[in-house]
């Protein structure tokens, strides 16, 4: 019996909540393929209200007289109360096939409205900023010695700092240097710990990436595709991080967000296609540093806000419903009278993924997110 069917049978016969921990742990031991996690950071603060639209909240239409009608006719229905932006076609399909969980009104706990601080906070996962350690790096340190992690970037992002399992990769069109140059440099760097370990790392990743180098550079869909290739085999990478910029829509939001969401949607589709059968054991977590103002601004956009949204997707996800508590958009329901109120913690949701997908115990999760215990809601099938 295939694993998914087995779990479905379990789900049909008994309360999943009761069975969840011991039963799933036992099942997971039987599975030889590694459990993969892909972490996607949307830099610039995605406007969640334009992405996961609260269709039944009357105030939404009042606050956004120009933005709301621009997409109203083509929304993709999720639940009674929410619908996706029309550009999220593939993700909508995932939702319908129960492989995606949108979560509304989330926040990292970061109290201010600076992108850069907000992103560092989201990546660090601590209640005070620490640029040297990220939540994913701390989680990776709890995994087996041969777990491999990859940042699709030129340098290690904060999320993955403090772990030695991480390497970086980014497509380049340059021809590789000769072997003898690498050897000579290895020798030159013998007294320089930083440079020698970076060189070793670079050589390892180059070998792993093989000929996946893409000619195109920097587009999310291409990066996601390459990332999928690097993840898709038993000895491949177990965990990867991708980043997408361009979400800071202070003006002309209708056009800009449409383009951004299209790119995200295509990227997720490309990642899934490249992962092939590994998609079944993969969880993709997508989050952004904070949300945007509930009310549209004077230039067809939105300014920096607080509460936002996140996505958990993948073949391993028990999806098909919108999670999170909707706080409402009436003036007194807003944060500081202006932003969507965050009602659940981004980190507690991520903690739940780590616990259920990577089987990290509560004590370990407490090291990863000291201030945000994992939720017990079942996210993984």
């Amino acid at each position, binding site marked *: 019996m295939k694993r998914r069917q087995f779990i479905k049978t379990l789900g049909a016969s008994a309360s999943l909540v009761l069975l969840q921990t011991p039963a799933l742990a036992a099942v997971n031991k039987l599975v030889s393929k590694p459990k993969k996690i892909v972490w996607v950071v949307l*830099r*610039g603060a995605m406007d969640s209200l334009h992405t996961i639209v609260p269709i039944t909240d009357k105030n939404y239409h009042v606050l956004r*007289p*120009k933005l709301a009608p621009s997409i109203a006719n083509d929304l993709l229905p999720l639940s009674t109360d929410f619908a996706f932006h029309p550009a999220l076609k593939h993700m909508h399909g995932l939702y319908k096939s129960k492989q995606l969980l949108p979560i509304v009104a989330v926040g990292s706990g970061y109290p*201010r*409205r*600076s*992108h*850069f*601080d907000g992103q560092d906070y989201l990546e660090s996962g601590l209640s005070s900023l620490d640029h040297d350690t990220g939540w994913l790096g701390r989680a990776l340190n709890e995994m087996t010695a041969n777990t491999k992690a990859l*940042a699709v*970037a*030129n*340098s*290690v992002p904060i999320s993955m*700092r403090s772990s030695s399992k991480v390497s*970086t*990769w*980014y497509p*380049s*069109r*340059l*021809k*590789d*240097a*000769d072997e*003898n*140059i*690498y050897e*000579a*440099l290895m020798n*030159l*760097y*013998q*007294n*320089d710990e*930083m*440079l020698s370990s*970076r*060189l*070793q*790392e*670079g*050589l*390892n*990743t*180059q070998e792993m990436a093989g000929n996946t180098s893409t000619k195109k*550079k920097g587009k999310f869909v291409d990066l996601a595709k390459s990332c999928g290739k690097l993840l898709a085999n038993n000895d491949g990478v177990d965990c990867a991080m991708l980043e997408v*910029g361009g979400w*800071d829509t*202070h*003006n002309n939001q209708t056009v800009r967000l449409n383009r951004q969401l299209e790119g995200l949607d295509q990227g997720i589709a490309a990642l899934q296609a490249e992962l092939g059968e590994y998609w079944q054991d993969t969880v993709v977590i997508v989050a952004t540093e904070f949300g945007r103002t509930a009310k*549209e*601004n*004077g*230039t067809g*956009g939105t*300014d*920096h806000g607080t509460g936002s949204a996140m996505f958990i997707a993948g073949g391993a996800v028990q999806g098909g419903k919108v999670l999170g508590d909707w706080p409402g958009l009436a003036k007194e329901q807003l944060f*500081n009278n202006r932003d969507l109120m965050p009602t659940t913690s981004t980190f507690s949701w991520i903690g739940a993924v780590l616990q259920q997908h990577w089987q990290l115990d509560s004590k370990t999760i407490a090291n990863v997110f000291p201030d945000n215990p994992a939720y017990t809601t079942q996210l993984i099938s």
Partner: protein
Amino acid sequence: MSTTNSKATIAANRFGLGAKPGELELAKQNPKKWLAAQLTPVVFDQNLPSSNDVFLQLSKYQAIKRQNKKNKVSEEQDKKDNKVRQKFIQTTYRKLASDTFVQSINSDNSLAWRLLDFFSNHFSVSANGNVMTAIAATLEREAIAANLFNNFEDMLLAVSKHPAMLTYLNNERSFGPNSKLATKSKKAKKGVGLNENLAREILELHTLGVKGGYSQADVIELAKGITGWSVANSHKEDATGFIYRAWGKEPGNRVLLGKTYKQKGIKQGEAMLKGLANHPNTAKFICHKLVKHFISDNPDSQLVDILVKRWQETGGNIKEVMLALINSEQAWHVEQEKFKTPREFLQSTYRALPQNTIKFKQLFFTLNTFGQQPFQAGSPAGFSDEQQDWDGGNALMSKIDWTTLYASRIRSNAENIMNNTLALASSHNTYKAVVRAESRKQALVMLLMSPEFLRR
């Protein structure tokens, strides 16, 4: 290695953009004096277009586009015209951005160019979209370079009024909810109003810093203070560049950081910016950033204090603050604590190995590969100035690959270049690796990829 020689190496590499042949000899006499003399204006190619020229040209293309629509010209012709416009935009961007780069590598006052890069990145704008691609690089030429050795408030005001900054951070259409426009015109119904973007970044990135003690209310007050600071539409108006639209200004007093600003019109925003420029937290924020840029990722607080003190004594005079940095003992320690950014790595490489011509296309390809294409930081915070954001394994591999390619195209005596740029003694590992390399190419790669050349 003699002490004077080492001070000359520090002067050329830590403060400047790396030594050109012959520079270490010059610096040796009196390294501090040599640097102080470099605090002189930077000079650009004056034949390149200004932001006004760019706006006029774009406006002409717009007119052609409208004409085409009106005359229902063939799709082919329209495409052709569009191509011409795109070419102008791309060429302008490349020419302007590479002019800065090329001038900096040929310059005898590379310290000044380094300072220009610092403030250009401090007031980062990105070349996204047609207008920004064409004008992004004019900000550093017109607002930053012109005020490089003035008081910081002059630079802040010039930058905040420059069309590139106003467009990039969306202030050009930010109007007061109680302005004449909003209360009397029909346009009000179309939802004109405030946009906080520029005001927030002025507080967070340009002046006080994120921990500088401002609140959301301050952001809104500053945003209201600079409503109406806009960019002329050269098609509809007989003007280009900055324009103050009185009918879009939010009326009334403003309260910023507890201080009330009663000025009217454009004066109000100007007074608010001056207040911010001269706030003690701005001095701290920018001096800290300067020490971080020139000396170490973990700035010595005593050194920062020296700069802050000079800032306050001189009303934020950038030249005086730089002199204080040059003349401080703390800046001259022999350990190399700074890892070069990709841009600085390339600048110092080209300075060490002077070229007759640098091809624009190659330059942009290389900077893009290294992740630091001019005006592509993609965020108003600019590019990072920290080692950990540039020292990844992949970044190192790209540099090795590029350097190997570059070294194979150039015939140079690596030992001479080493003496001209780093003046290493024979006890150094790098010295040995260079002189014992198996080929000319390898020798050059060893030098350019050495721990000493990658840092300063």
